[in-house]
């Protein structure tokens, strides 16, 4: 090897990896979209639990629970509570589920492959969204059951 300046170097014909590009551009996007959807229902739920179950009476908590009560009573804003407590966490769950699953279809063998990636942070967000949605759903079921019992049998659950 005589002269490093004139050293011929390999110069292969490569092409940009488009799949990698998509992967990088999608990094953290799902968590960023999903997290704000949980903030409002999370705050409202915690406020209600603190007041109703733990009996904590702070000014801000009372204000929040009163707001929810007033929204529910009005026919114009009655739809807001289901939207906040049910729809937002549901959409967040769907987003987080999509972020950890990958679907691929093999046309030759007619096989649909679903891969689930255990990403700790996204799984944690999924569980929090599930807990919020589960708590609200359980509360609604028990509330309705309570009213049913009162109407039918004259006594609550």
């Amino acid at each position, binding site marked *: 090897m005589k002269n490093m300046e004139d050293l*011929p170097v390999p*110069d*292969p014909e490569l092409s940009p990896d488009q799949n990698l590009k998509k992967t990088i551009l999608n990094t953290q996007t799902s968590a960023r979209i999903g997290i704000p959807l949980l903030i409002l229902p999370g705050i409202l739920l915690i406020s209600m639990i603190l007041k109703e179950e733990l009996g904590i009476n702070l000014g801000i908590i009372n204000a929040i629970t009163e707001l929810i009560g007033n929204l529910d009573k009005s026919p114009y804003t009655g739809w807001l509570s289901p939207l906040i407590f049910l729809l937002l966490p549901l959409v967040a769950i769907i987003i987080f589920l999509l972020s950890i699953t990958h679907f691929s279809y093999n046309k030759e063998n007619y096989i649909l492959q679903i891969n689930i990636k255990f990403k700790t942070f996204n799984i944690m967000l999924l569980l929090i969204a599930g807990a919020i949605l589960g708590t609200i759903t359980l509360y609604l079921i028990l509330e309705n059951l309570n009213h049913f019992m009162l109407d039918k049998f004259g006594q609550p659950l």
Partner: protein
Amino acid sequence: MDDKEIYDRIKSDKQNFAILYDQYFVPIKKYILRRIGNYDISCDVTAETFLKAYLKISHFEYRGISYKVWLYRIATNEVNLFFRSKKYKPLNKINLEDFNNETLITSQQEDKDIWEKELQDHHDFLKAQQVIKNLPIKYAEVLSLRYFEKASIKEIAEILDKPKGTIKSLCTRGLQKVKEKMQPGTES
């Protein structure tokens, strides 16, 4: 498209990072391949380079250095990290397996075959690369940029963020070490 235009586009929408990716992916990958040699590891390091660039792109200030220099700097740091650490773990935030396994493997295999064929036709390069890889990193990075990437002293100084005088000195001393190792009887 010049750097200023790219900068403005990325500022308005981070997804325009794709412009940088399309423009610099191949040159950066070739640089990493020439330094590391192994195709599969080079793919990991290249992916890590662009991932880190994407995550840091919001903090890039358009003053003093170009995108090219910035990306080469990140790539150099990643390659150095690989050589320094036995526990180098690329892709700590993403996993290539998430996306379309089949297509990814096919396109990588074709490129891998192309690279390995190129190496077979460049014996002198292979000898030089082996020697340079075993030098201390401060010499290896300068010599790789100078003789593999044909970068000027000014460009190398910008990439490594060192004075030009230091780069010249490292280049001279590094070249001396390469010549010593390439002497007959000292080749490994």
